[in-house]
């Protein structure tokens, strides 16, 4: 019998390549073949008009092949890049040009594109380009954007790109009538994904076949394919996009097309030689995307039990210089802020503001960390006001297990209702309390205090809308060897998709795991796909893969039943052999694959074996009208709405009384993503999310000066967690409330680890220090300054 693989800790198949240095990341493509290399001239100024660009000295550099500026671009390439996700509230959407036209709006904006024999020479040439600028005063930060004494774009009044309001009930009336009210101002800084592999694109034009092949480090191969075709004036059918291994994405690689993803294919086509662009780290900081920067104002009304009667949230989102990815991030904050709770009434309004800084697109968690920070800080403030335990206040506001599906009365990021499918928040809270030792903490605090040590505990709860539509598809092909080739169009950037999807196929089809090979992100193999973001891969492609394997199995059984002269109902399959139950009558799946294709050629052993069987009625055509040759299954999965994973984190921190250094003593996670395909992979996702969350909570910020220069655009200066900054252990407990929305009962798991981090650390630091924490991240020096600021009050 084939052992069921779903739910087990199957070691990852992709590791065998990656551990031997045999991965294929974008910069590894076409190594050893003639390739030209590109470098980009980027704006040194945050806001300036371009008066003149002089490239006359560039072509004198030996090894330089070509240079492009905006004036060299024609047709669709000379138009602004697409606004990928328009929204009616985005009344003033703006996108950049592939190369700046007339004006630059942030340091790092692409101005000229040089192609040379190697990257060193290309950079030499970039250094010889002379640009005359007329400096304009930049708008940096949310305060400057709101003040609007200067404008980022002349035609966008008040720097406001969008204003969106949603309301469920009459929140302001509910607050006015509530026994208790509170106001809070809460801020989260900008951070960035920083995958260790930056962006990279390689393109080869084949003039004989009229085909463009693009390899790019993206989270959406099909998206890039569409953009390249549209911008270069090619038919979609002429463009193939391949995304082999991706060295981390975390959201930033979902934006597309980057200017370089168009300029590289353009150059390859014109020069007739493959062209490669590999971003360096500084470029990634100043020319890709950031996230997280938001200011929030909360008004809340509640009763004596801590039950929220009315919640009114206003916030300001810094979306940087352009809005190619629309309003996804602030829409998610505004909706997912509600977490596992059901306030009596809720109103939210946000403004999305232009600044002369790098644009904002989703970063792991995508707006949820800010929303969670706002809601959980509010819960803590309510508990403090009422003198109640923080877990009690949360419990008083939970949606109850018997209330699912629960409609929050809002519209989610995918344009569908914000309706939670399943969950059990009270059970989750009980698990978390046990895991972190919530009820024993006061004894621990006293023990530590006796040693002169200061500790604090915090918790934070979240809900994560995962598995957003519209669809994903999969194709399963059984070869005559019995090997199973599976393709799904979405990409992979380290989540172990090749393993997880192979587990699903092996189970459904009844073949050994080792016989299944999964390809992701190759438009030649699956041209219809969306992408890997919003914790959607397992839910969407996992379900599609399951359905496609099921289709292949049904066809295999139909053919086998005929060959074995048995009823489909009597067949079973394991280890790649279809058998009439309880008999010796059997046929290999590979042989069935031969029978599915009425050729007469005996290519291989399976073909020879097939000659003993006869399939099909000689009086009818070899391929029936409603059939097709080949043992394949193809299917798509498209859900009604998102599925809602949830979880709760708790942390115990120690703060140093002298240095204000923050040390993590214990970190606990309770996590519910429905059924787990591979617990090992899910736990790895949680570990990684927690580490990124620690970075966001304690270290990461984008240090812009008032002229719009990013002062920490290197790994030397932008602090990310090393092993020395993460918890020495992360205690994890799972809860499985299956999703009713998909055949496998799964929910996404990729982003959860990072969502509650700012909230949970703020709570624990506040608990240790007795000082309200309202802005994150918080460094030791900031905590020290906060202490100083609160000293007079305490001593007065």
């Amino acid at each position, binding site marked *: 019998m084939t052992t069921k693989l779903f739910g087990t800790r199957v*070691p*990852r198949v992709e*590791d*065998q390549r*990656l*551990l*031997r*240095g*045999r*991965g*294929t*990341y974008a*910069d*590894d493509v076409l*190594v*050893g073949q003639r390739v030209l290399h590109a470098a980009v001239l980027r704006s040194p100024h945050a806001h300036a008009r371009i008066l003149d660009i002089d490239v006359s000295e560039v072509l*004198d*550099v*030996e090894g330089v092949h070509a240079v492009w500026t905006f004036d060299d671009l024609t047709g669709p390439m000379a138009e602004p890049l697409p606004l990928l996700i328009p929204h009616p509230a985005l009344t003033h959407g703006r996108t950049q040009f592939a190369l700046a036209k007339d004006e630059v709006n942030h340091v790092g904006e692409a101005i000229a594109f040089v192609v040379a024999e*190697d*990257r*060193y*020479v290309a950079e030499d040439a970039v250094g010889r380009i002379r640009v005359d600028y007329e400096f304009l005063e930049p708008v940096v930060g949310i305060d400057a954007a709101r003040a609007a004494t200067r404008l980022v774009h002349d035609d966008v009044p008040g720097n406001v790109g969008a204003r969106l309001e949603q309301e469920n009930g009459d929140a302001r009336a509910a607050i006015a009538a509530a026994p208790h009210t509170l106001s809070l101002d809460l801020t989260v800084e900008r951070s960035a*994904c*920083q*995958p*260790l*592999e930056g962006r990279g694109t390689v393109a080869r034009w084949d003039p004989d076949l009229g085909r463009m092949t693009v390899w790019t480090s993206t989270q959406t191969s099909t998206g890039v394919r569409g953009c390249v075709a549209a911008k270069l004036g090619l038919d979609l059918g002429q463009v193939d996009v391949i995304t082999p*291994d991706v*060295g*981390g994405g*975390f959201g930033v690689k979902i934006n597309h097309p980057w200017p370089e993803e168009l300029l590289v294919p353009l150059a390859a086509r014109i020069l007739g030689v493959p062209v490669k662009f590999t971003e*360096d*780290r500084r470029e990634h900081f100043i020319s890709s995307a950031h996230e997280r920067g938001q200011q929030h104002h909360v008004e809340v009304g509640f009763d004596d039990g801590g039950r929220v009667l009315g919640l009114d949230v206003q916030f300001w989102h810094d979306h940087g210089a352009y809005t190619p990815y629309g309003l996804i991030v602030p829409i998610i904050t505004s909706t997912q802020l509600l977490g596992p709770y059901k306030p009596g009434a809720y109103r939210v309004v946000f403004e999305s503001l232009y600044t002369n800084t790098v644009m904002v697109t989703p970063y792991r968690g995508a707006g949820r960390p800010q929303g969670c920070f706002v809601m959980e800080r509010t819960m803590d403030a309510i508990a403090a006001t009422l003198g109640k335990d923080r877990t009690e206040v949360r419990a008083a506001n939970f949606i109850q297990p018997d209330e699912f599906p629960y409609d929050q009365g809002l519209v989610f990021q995918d344009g569908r209702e914000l309706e939670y499918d399943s969950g059990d928040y009270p059970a989750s809270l009980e698990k978390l309390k046990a895991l972190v030792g919530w009820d024993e903490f006061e004894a621990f605090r006293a023990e530590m205090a006796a040693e002169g040590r200061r500790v604090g505990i915090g918790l934070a709860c979240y809900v994560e809308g995962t598995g957003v539509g519209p669809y994903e598809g999969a194709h399963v092909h059984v070869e005559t060897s019995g090997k199973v080739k599976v393709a799904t169009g979405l990409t992979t950037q*380290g*989540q*172990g998709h090749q393993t997880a999807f192979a587990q699903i196929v092996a189970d459904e089809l009844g073949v050994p795991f080792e016989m299944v090979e999964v390809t992701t992100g190759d438009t030649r193999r699956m041209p219809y796909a969306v992408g890997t973001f919003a914790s959607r891969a397992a839910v969407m492609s996992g379900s599609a893969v399951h359905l496609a394997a099921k289709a292949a199995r049904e066809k295999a059984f139909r053919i086998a039943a005929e060959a074995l002269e048995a009823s489909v109902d009597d067949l079973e399959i394991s280890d790649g052999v279809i058998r009439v139950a309880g008999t010796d009558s059997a046929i290999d799946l590979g042989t069935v694959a031969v029978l599915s294709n009425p050729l007469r050629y005996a290519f291989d052993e399976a073909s020879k074996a097939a000659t003993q069987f006869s399939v099909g009625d000689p009086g009818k055509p070899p391929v029936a009208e409603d059939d097709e040759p080949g043992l394949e299954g193809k299917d798509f999965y498209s859900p009604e709405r998102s599925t809602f994973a949830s979880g709760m984190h708790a942390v115990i921190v120690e703060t140093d009384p002298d240095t204000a250094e923050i040390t993590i003593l214990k970190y606990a996670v309770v996590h519910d993503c429905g059924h787990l395909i591979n617990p*090992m*992979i899910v*736990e*790895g996702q*949680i*570990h*990684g*999310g*927690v*580490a*990124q969350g620690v970075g966001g909570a304690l270290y990461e910020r984008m240090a812009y000066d008032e002229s719009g220069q990013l002062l920490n655009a*290197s*790994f*030397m200066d932008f602090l*990310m*967690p*090393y*092993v*020395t900054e*993460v918890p*020495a252990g*992360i205690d994890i407990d799972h809860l499985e409330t299956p999703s009713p929305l998909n055949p496998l009962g799964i929910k996404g798991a990729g982003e959860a*680890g990072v969502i509650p981090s700012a909230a949970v650390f703020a709570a624990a630091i506040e608990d240790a220090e007795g000082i309200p924490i309202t802005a994150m991240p918080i460094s030791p020096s900031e905590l020290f300054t906060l202490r100083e600021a609160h000293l007079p009050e305490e001593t007065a």
Partner: protein
Amino acid sequence: MTEEVHDVRLQVNGATHAVTVPARRLLSDALRHDCGLTGTHVGCEHGVCGACTVLMDGRPVRSCLVLAVSAEDTEVTTVEGLAEDTGEDDTVLSPVQQAFSDCHGLQCGFCTPGFLTTITAGLRANPDPTEDEARDMIAGNLCRCTGYQNIVKAVLRAAELTREGR
């Protein structure tokens, strides 16, 4: 403007590569683009992330901070040189590589070669590390995916495998 180039013989993973490179060419680029050994990855180009770590005469160095011309007369080991070539269809993973596979010590795999080389050298210097020593051993390498939890486990597991004579 013609750039002066130098003929350099690089000894990498037991093979000699004759490359012709300008003086400014980084070892990381020479390994990747001139020798075709793309297992060595470049994450930051300023020596901070450790992704490009290779062994020079057995000691870990950031290949993005070494000029290719200065690597002559040294023995360089990249990630491709860690697995044992058995002459069969495939190579046998080294204890460190095997431990990463056992412990789920990698996700996207981009930083992994730098961790593998760093730990290989680290375990030669300290074959029996405590958990704290294991953390110290990898404290100079950045990983953005794993949260390091399983990499620490992999260091300890690799030490165990080495002791078992793997």
